[in-house]
């Protein structure tokens, strides 16, 4: 039996089928995580944002869009908005008495911990370097140069309102 196409998955998701969400997660969670990491510079934040992205997808399942036979641009769009808001929320929460529940995963070995810290440090340097770019240009850079989307896919992704938090 062949795997369902993204168009079929999108239709199933629009119909409220939970399995469709699970399939999309299995297919794209890694890429969404990578995108979120490149936007936040923090693995834990990226994990939170990945979970939030797919919960947002479920909340707005009727609005799922397929672009060139792929739901990925739409997912990237949702993730971009989620990460932006995550950063904003993080700032807010740090100002207050806030905490983000985060289940601890398996214990890390020192080597992998060091590796992860190095990754985060490198990513923060990159983010610092592009900090002066307008938000929109940073988003395009992230989607096109780092995540490999075409300009058309990036345009589709950035035109997605889902996950935007009203000011």
């Amino acid at each position, binding site marked *: 039996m062949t795997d369902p196409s993204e168009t079929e998955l999108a239709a199933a998701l629009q119909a409220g089928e939970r399995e469709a969400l699970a399939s999309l997660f299995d297919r794209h*969670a890694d890429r969404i995580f990578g995108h979120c990491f490149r936007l936040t510079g923090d693995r834990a934040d990226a994990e*939170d944002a990945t979970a939030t992205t797919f919960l947002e997808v479920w909340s707005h399942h009727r609005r799922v869009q397929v672009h060139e036979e792929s739901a990925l641009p739409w997912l990237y769009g949702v993730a971009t908005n989620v990460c932006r808001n995550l950063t904003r*929320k993080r700032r807010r929460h740090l100002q207050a008495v806030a905490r983000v529940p985060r289940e601890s995963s398996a214990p890390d070995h020192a080597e992998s911990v060091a590796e992860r810290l190095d990754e985060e440090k490198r990513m923060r340097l990159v983010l610092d370097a592009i900090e002066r770019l307008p938000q929109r240009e940073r988003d395009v850079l992230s989607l096109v140069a780092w995540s490999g989307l075409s300009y058309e896919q990036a345009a589709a992704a950035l035109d997605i309102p889902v996950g935007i938090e009203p000011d």
Partner: protein
Amino acid sequence: MNDDLTPPDVSLDPAAKARIRQQVLAGVQEPATERRWLVPAGAVAAVALIALVSTVVASGGDNMPELAPAGPATVTTTDEPTNEPTTEPTTDEPTTDPEPANAPAALETACRPELGIEKAEEVLTFSDDLGSAAFYSDGTRWQLCSVHGDIVTVQADETIARPSRFDSVEPYQVSTDTVVAADGTLRTSFTAGGVLYSDRDEYLSIVYTFPGGVTVPAELAEGRDGAAYWAMDYTPTDGPLADPKVNQTKLPEIEVEISYEGGFVQGFPLEWGIDTCAQVNHGC
């Protein structure tokens, strides 16, 4: 591109992926067509039903209780009113009570002179066995008024459209009324409420935890003005807060916890006397 501007190639390790997958799928247990902002679990909704002994109405196609819009339509109460929260879900079916103890008209009469907003209209009401409360709005500002016994309490009026105090304890401060109940005992009511400033779909719950461990989830509902409101009203009947000899300020602080979709949790302790005196028309 300079190598220094090349992001590291990171991957989601299988354990983390499995955990996130579990988180996501656990968060979508309920049908996607249901509104998710009210309260996440039926049991919690049942607790809220008991806790507030509210004038609740069944919302169309939605199994969750809602605060009743102001007015005489389909007002229901539980069979045996009690405002003591419990962790046990109830199966009690609401029964119609055409003349609730705290009629909207009485509430209106008591609250109107205290309101700071001209031409404000009642947009949402709720009640327990000791009192009633209502949100009033003129479409741009809102104000919460509660009546416990013969004490009328209003909190400061606030804007609907723009959050003025979103990331602090202030929106979650409670007003405190001490009244003589019908059995002659002194009882203290704690009331809080406000507008859900952000997209209400983000909110999962607002829960107060009182000394003694009693948790009271706020009701989240839409007013007739279209704004989304939350409200919490609690009158302890036992435990330290029901004992008039106990100095409240020596007790642990009330805590409020706001949960959002995606796992965000925001929490604030309420400092006695500072955050428990939200009323603006009388002392504490």
